[in-house]
């Protein structure tokens, strides 16, 4: 019952977030009717996800059969949720996947592609003028912070490579790496030539 309550709360929040993305619900509608079971083996937990055009329904148990069943320890599930390269994690030995994996991958893609229209949500609470003022202010702050961080990064790199000479500069490093690559190729060619000469002068048996 506790888990049912917890899932109900998460479902409510998740569906609010999904409603803020203009494409998520139509994409979820295509998965309508699918039942995706996620079983966490350590700790032992089970979650059933039922997508529909109104969002996701989460259930602690489901009497019907699941279309797709994913079984993995919590650490792998977390990696799967946060990683871009899901296929690599799905092929790891501790992860088991049965059934319609396309449904699971599509659901993961929908959740990863979320682009939240937070200005619309804000306008519901503050009205159009208030949300415009606040979002304009926030946008300029975010832009200033991004510029400041970018500038700091460039200045720091410049200082470390050009002024204090603590680190090698990017161009200098690139040129040195190119020399090393050339040297490696030359060595490989030399090695091949010596090998060929050794074959030519080998006494015949």
């Amino acid at each position, binding site marked *: 019952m506790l888990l*049912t309550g917890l899932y*109900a709360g998460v479902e409510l929040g998740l569906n609010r977030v999904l409603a803020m993305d203009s494409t998520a619900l139509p994409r979820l509608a295509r998965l*309508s*009717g699918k039942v995706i079971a996620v079983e966490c083996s350590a700790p032992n937990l089970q979650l059933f996800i*039922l997508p529909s055009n109104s969002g996701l329904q989460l*259930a602690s*148990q*489901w*009497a*019907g059969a699941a279309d797709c069943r994913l079984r993995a320890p919590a650490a792998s599930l977390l990696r799967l949720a946060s990683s871009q390269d899901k296929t690599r994690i799905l092929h790891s030995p501790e992860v088991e996947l049965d059934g319609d994996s396309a449904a699971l991958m599509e659901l993961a893609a929908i959740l990863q592609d979320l682009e939240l229209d937070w200005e619309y949500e804000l306008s519901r609470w503050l009205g159009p003028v208030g949300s415009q003022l606040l979002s304009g202010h926030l946008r300029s702050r975010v832009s200033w912070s991004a510029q400041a961080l970018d500038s700091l990064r460039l200045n720091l790199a410049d200082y470390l490579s050009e002024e204090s000479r603590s680190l090698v500069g990017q161009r200098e490093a690139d040129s040195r790496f190119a020399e090393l690559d050339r040297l490696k190729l030359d060595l490989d060619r030399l090695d091949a030539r010596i090998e060929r000469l050794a074959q030519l002068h080998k006494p015949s048996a």
Partner: protein
Amino acid sequence: MNDPRKSNDSEPTTHFGFQSVPESQKAEKVAEVFHSVAAKYDLMNDVLSGGMHRLWKRFTIELSGVRPGNRVLDIAGGTGDLTRKFSTLVGPSGEVVLADINESMLRVGRDRLLDKGVAGNVSFVQADAEKLPFPDNHFDVVTIAFGLRNVTHKEDALRSMLRVLKPGGRLLVLEFSKPSNELLSKFYDAYSFRFMPLAGKLITNDADSYRYLAESIRMHPNQETLKAMMVEAGFERVTYHNMTGGIVALHRGIKP
């Protein structure tokens, strides 16, 4: 020998809360209760259960295993909490019938669902659970949530539900039951007989309806008795799940 179920004029009697009334009057009296509380039914459910009724209903949905294309009958569906969820689950190829004997409850449920945009695969039927107006072997799932205790002849209602279910179909009965813990039972008694009528008086100006609610819960069969009744009616693999310490139980039976 006198039959205890017969009154002096030999009409069979039944319980209406703690009162004994002629069977012909029970449905009318129950209808009066629900006409009175229909407008504030959802609010009262939230207040009296502390929102727990939503979790009990969620659990019912989880155990229903409803799939797209299924046909579902929600008896005593009231304000349509279960119907709304079922409507999403069965999709456009399925069908959900919200049935209630009480016209006021049905009207509130229909308006509420339409307001929320639930339409297309939902129909509304005023029907008596004892004489369901549907063909045999018609539904994949039948649910009755907090309704069975108000039915005059529960055995007849269970048989009627069995008839309309397809073979392999599931009946889910969500109903108040008997707490499994003595201490909880004492607290629950005090809560039911003191707080519930008071809350009814304050919110709906109707203490009697909520006194009836508390009394009807005590008169309702406990978990094992209801399970035996379902087996007697013809259901197989009957199981029940206690929730909130047995205050509410969900019974499930399969039609063979």
